[in-house]
């Protein structure tokens, strides 16, 4: 504890007074832009299993490394999954991770496809809460570049665009949220893809200072004429450690033929400068 230091309080008040600063303050803040940047590395390992309305199951194992840079209210991320897809080659995945059934023929021999998926870039802007009262609003946009092999059916071979908006409000330990997303896929020549809408509605619950649970209902509209919309229940438990590490375990339960029957995974995230 330090005793009264008027200078320290003054600096805080000055910041509040300068919610719309002049050019000088702006330039000074821009100088600090990179100095204040925080980097986060995340690695997720996920498994899912489902028939997606076909007569055969497809098992998917995804390792997903993500690098993120956060400065002020902006966050930029780049990711490239490594996938192991075993089944009959009927299912590939779009930029949002949604299954795309491209062929219902069951005469194809079973095969295991492995390799890197498409490269994705995304940017997120958190609207300052000063403007949003007690709401937190995030808007995101992303692009998936078709770097993965189309021959091994690890990609559609097209560039996809995503955008989403996430609204959260805190009510004590509860944090209900709604996320709405829209995906515009590139159009391959061999099959038809729809633009898709996704909605996720749920809540977080802060069990303790370092333990948070999240449950949600997730919906994704059908991405092709061959698959139905995806309805899923999602649940997770995150352990947040001091020093910037977060470990999350999650599970999913499919409610429709367009979603995986089950899914589970672990995500480890570490924030550093």
């Amino acid at each position, binding site marked *: 504890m330090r005793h009264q230091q008027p200078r320290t309080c003054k600096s805080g008040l000055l910041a509040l007074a300068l919610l719309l600063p002049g050019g000088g*303050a702006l330039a000074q803040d821009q100088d600090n832009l990179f100095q204040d940047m925080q980097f986060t590395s995340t690695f997720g390992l996920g498994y899912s299993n489902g028939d997606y309305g076909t007569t055969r199951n497809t098992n998917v194992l995804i390792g997903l490394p993500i690098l993120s840079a956060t400065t002020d209210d902006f966050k930029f991320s780049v990711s490239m999954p490594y996938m192991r897809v075993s089944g009959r080659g009927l299912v590939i995945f779009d930029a949002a991770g949604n299954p795309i059934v491209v062929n219902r023929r069951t005469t194809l021999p079973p095969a295991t496809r492995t390799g890197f998926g498409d490269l994705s870039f995304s940017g997120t802007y958190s609207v300052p809460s000063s403007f949003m009262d007690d709401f937190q609003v995030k808007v995101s946009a992303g692009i998936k570049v078709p770097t993965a092999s189309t021959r091994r059916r690890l990609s559609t071979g097209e560039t996809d665009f995503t955008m989403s908006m996430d609204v959260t409000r805190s009510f004590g330990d509860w944090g209900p949220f709604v996320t709405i997303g829209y995906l515009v896929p590139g159009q391959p020549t061999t099959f038809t893809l729809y633009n898709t809408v996704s909605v996720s509605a749920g809540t977080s619950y802060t069990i303790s200072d370092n*333990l948070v649970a*999240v449950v949600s209902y997730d919906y994704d509209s059908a991405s092709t004429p061959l698959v139905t919309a995806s309805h899923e229940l999602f649940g997770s438990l995150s352990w947040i450690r001091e020093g910037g590490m977060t470990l999350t375990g999650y599970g999913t339960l499919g409610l429709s033929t367009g979603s995986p029957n089950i899914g589970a995974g672990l995500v480890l995230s570490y924030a550093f400068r």
Partner: protein
Amino acid sequence: MPRPGLRILLSIAAVLPVTPAVAANLTIRVENVLPAGGILRLGLYDEARYPDDNAKPIAAADVPAVAGETVITLQGIAPGAYAIQAYQDVNSNDRMDTSWIGLPLEPFGFSLDIKPFLSKPVFNAVKFIVTAGENSQVVHLQNSVKNSPAEKARDTIRARQRK
């Protein structure tokens, strides 16, 4: 996010040059303190000093931020009208961090829980009366969602969804 936690009771001497003949004590419960730690910095201002960002507060306290709730007691204050401004200096860098357009990045609060819009609220909006004897106020920190454990958890999940 009120949360039971250790309470720190601190007695901070007022900085008036002369202790008033009829003094008051003011206990301030600061709520929504993030578990991220850092220093909770709080200042008490009268009407003359409040608008001037360079003015010294009537009384102030810099104390370790206690998750959930931090309690501060300011002693020896002259009765009158005052305003409270506080913020959680999460990274203990002795200043409130702001975005590139000057918006606060760390949790902050005013007396009466008034929410600022584009600039800090005027004194009349945040003032309260301190009378002789014991007084209390509650300040809920704003801007806490972004750095909350729940938000960190959801960030991790968003990564899973690759959206």
